[in-house]
């Protein structure tokens, strides 16, 4: 879960890293008051969960409070990559001698956190690593031993930094590493970390990302920062369709029937499980199909949950048919999913045989499941039909259906 810059800076401040005397506001007028308090040139920054703020016009410089108000007014209504800003941050324009980079991330191969440090800050660290690899220092650290400051010292020193700066940087980077672990972050980055004329350091921008799975552990902190439980902070905001899917999934605790993502096609997908859904979504697209959604069934959901998810997909505008497909199931029961999807069709007054393009879920309780499908005339397949072939048949059927309603141009002239 990503944090806005104003939240990330607060996290850095709480960790004991010096920050500038910034202010956050959602009101343009108040931006002027903050600028007046700062008393000097300021930077007005859009608080938005998207990169490329500068390019999009979301960062502007002001010399007076009046100018700050004007910029804030503009930025507050400026959409950046599909995101509206949460507010603006008013920051004193610091006189920086040099910009550094300090970050902590996970290394999945070493299975440890790693400190990354560079005296070349203010730009993308991946670019520095490519162009000046000798100026990037890295050190992994233990998750069992308490963090020891020498790790930070080694990371900084190996980037070529020495002298008085080294001594000042060690506690800052150590605090960043500790806060990364303590707060279950997947990314904790100060970039740039500025060195001022007097030799002291100050965080000028920060990026923080907390692991979703760990959110329940940090309820108090998130509450203090004002992060709502309903905020997903995904790369794009959830749609009403996706939120409805989440509600169905949380309706009872048995299994999963959710993780819905909306797409704009005509073929509704009731698919599972994790890996099966990825494979099937690819297969539908490879055959020229246009999925209306992505979703996941797994862990043996109840009939009502499978039914709820199917109804949601069937009711989506533009959905002509659905395909019900999973990789071979061993925990989820075929008959329960079969009952759920047929119930959904019947409750919406659809003929299951017409609406369900294909049902391909082999595995536990398949004899019982197939019997139910037969009774309703639904086209089903066992494990001898591959995931790819099932997806192909579903796409073929829906394209046939589309052709009778409104023949595609190519076919009409043929």
């Amino acid at each position, binding site marked *: 879960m990503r944090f806005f810059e104003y939240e990330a800076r607060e996290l850095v401040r709480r960790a004991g890293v010096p920050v500038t005397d910034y202010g956050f506001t959602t009101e343009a007028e108040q931006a002027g008051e903050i600028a007046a308090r700062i008393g000097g040139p300021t930077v007005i920054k859009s608080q938005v969960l998207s990169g490329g703020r500068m390019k999009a016009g979301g960062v502007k410089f002001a010399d007076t409070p009046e100018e700050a108000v004007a910029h804030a007014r503009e930025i507050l209504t400026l959409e950046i990559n599909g995101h509206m800003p949460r507010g603006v941050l008013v920051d004193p324009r610091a006189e920086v001698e040099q910009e550094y980079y300090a970050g902590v991330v996970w290394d999945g191969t070493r299975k440890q956190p790693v400190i990354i440090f560079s005296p070349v800050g203010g730009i993308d660290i991946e670019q520095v690593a490519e162009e000046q690899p000798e100026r990037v220092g890295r050190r992994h650290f233990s998750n069992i031993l308490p963090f020891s400051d020498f790790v930070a010292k080694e990371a900084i020193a190996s980037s070529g930094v020495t002298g008085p700066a080294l001594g000042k940087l060690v506690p800052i980077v150590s605090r960043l590493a500790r806060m990364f672990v303590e707060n*279950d972050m997947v990314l904790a980055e100060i970039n740039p970390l500025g060195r001022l004329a007097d030799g002291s350091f100050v965080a000028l921008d920060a990026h923080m990302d907390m692991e979703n799975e760990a959110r329940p552990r940090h309820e108090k902190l998130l509450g203090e920062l004002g992060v709502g439980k309903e905020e997903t902070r995904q*790369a794009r905001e959830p749609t009403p369709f996706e939120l409805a899917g989440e509600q169905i999934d949380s309706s009872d605790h048995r299994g999963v029937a959710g993780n819905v993502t909306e797409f704009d096609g005509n073929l509704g997908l009731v698919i599972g499980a994790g*890996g099966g859904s990825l494979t099937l979504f690819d297969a539908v697209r490879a055959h020229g199909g246009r999925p209306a959604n992505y979703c996941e069934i797994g862990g043996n959901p109840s009939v009502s949950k499978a039914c709820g998810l199917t109804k949601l997909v069937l009711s989506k505008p533009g959905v002509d048919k659905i395909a019900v497909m999973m990789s071979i199931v061993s925990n989820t029961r075929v008959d329960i999913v079969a009952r759920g999807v047929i119930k959904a069709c019947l409750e919406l007054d659809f003929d299951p045989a017409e609406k369900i393009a294909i049902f391909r879920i082999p595995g536990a309780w398949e004899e019982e499941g197939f019997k139910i499908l037969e009774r309703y005339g639904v086209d089903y397949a066992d494990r001898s039909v591959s995931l790819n072939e099932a997806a192909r048949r579903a796409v073929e059927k829906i394209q046939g259906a589309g052709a009778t309603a409104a023949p595609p141009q190519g076919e009409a002239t043929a």
Partner: protein
Amino acid sequence: MSILVDADTTFIVQGITGREAVNLTRECLDYGSGAKIVGGVTPGRLGREVHGVPVFDTVAQAVEHHGGPIDGSVVTVPPAFTRDAVFEALENGIKLVVIVTERIPRRDVAAMVELAALRGARIIGPNCLGIIVPDVIKMGGIGGPAKNAAQAYTPGPIGVISRSGGMTTEMSSTLSAAGLGQSAAVSIGGDAIIGSTYAELMPLFAADPQTRGIVIYTEPGGRMEAELAAWTLAQEESRRLPIVAFMAGRFMDEMPGMSFGHAGTIVEGKEDTASEKIARLANAGIQVAERIEDIPEMIGSRIAERASAGNGTGSG
């Protein structure tokens, strides 16, 4: 032969009285020659039984009751308690821990993996279905009830490693239908940090005389495939086991920052994308299948090529 487990492997189930754990215990007892589940642990339930398996309050009690070291543990406790349960298993001398639990924060997983390394133990998972040696033993929910597992998995020459539990069964079933059985199949889990990666399991398969080829299921996210490619290239060419990979989630390349299917699929850098991984695997001589049904033919002919070249027959 097999890797990790065999008919003599003893193990416990931590969290054995939970609903899913009770099913899992039944499945493992019923499968193959019958798993040697020598105990279960649920604090406060000492003296109970689950399908005839005695329940203890602590792992130490289970070890004492068994009268000697226990080989493995299947951990099914809720995410908030998993780290402690795994530490308990490791500190009581258990060398193979299969973690079924999902949604464990990385910090905890990393701590478990680090302690396991210090204790000379191995972790499979988390968020996985475990290990199966066809017709011999299964440790975990892999393949489901014994009857269903027997339908999908057959003994043979292929090692299967998969980031998806369900796809382990789907691919093994496809291989079995084509007459290619499995030496062992390992569901390694779909999280960003896991106990055993492809590259970490490869030496075990490479040392197993029954294994002649490897089939893996992969996804976007993480560096695990890059690690496998590097490991493969570091092996002497004549000693490389043929590997065929299947890559799911190719559509995710168009949706950076989103995660689908498993927590570990989030693409955080350009190295994590499906297309980048496919290129890396191919560069290491690992064929990437477009469709699951193409896998048996691909791995079969690679094994045949290698045999006719005089390698991999076990004579060297």
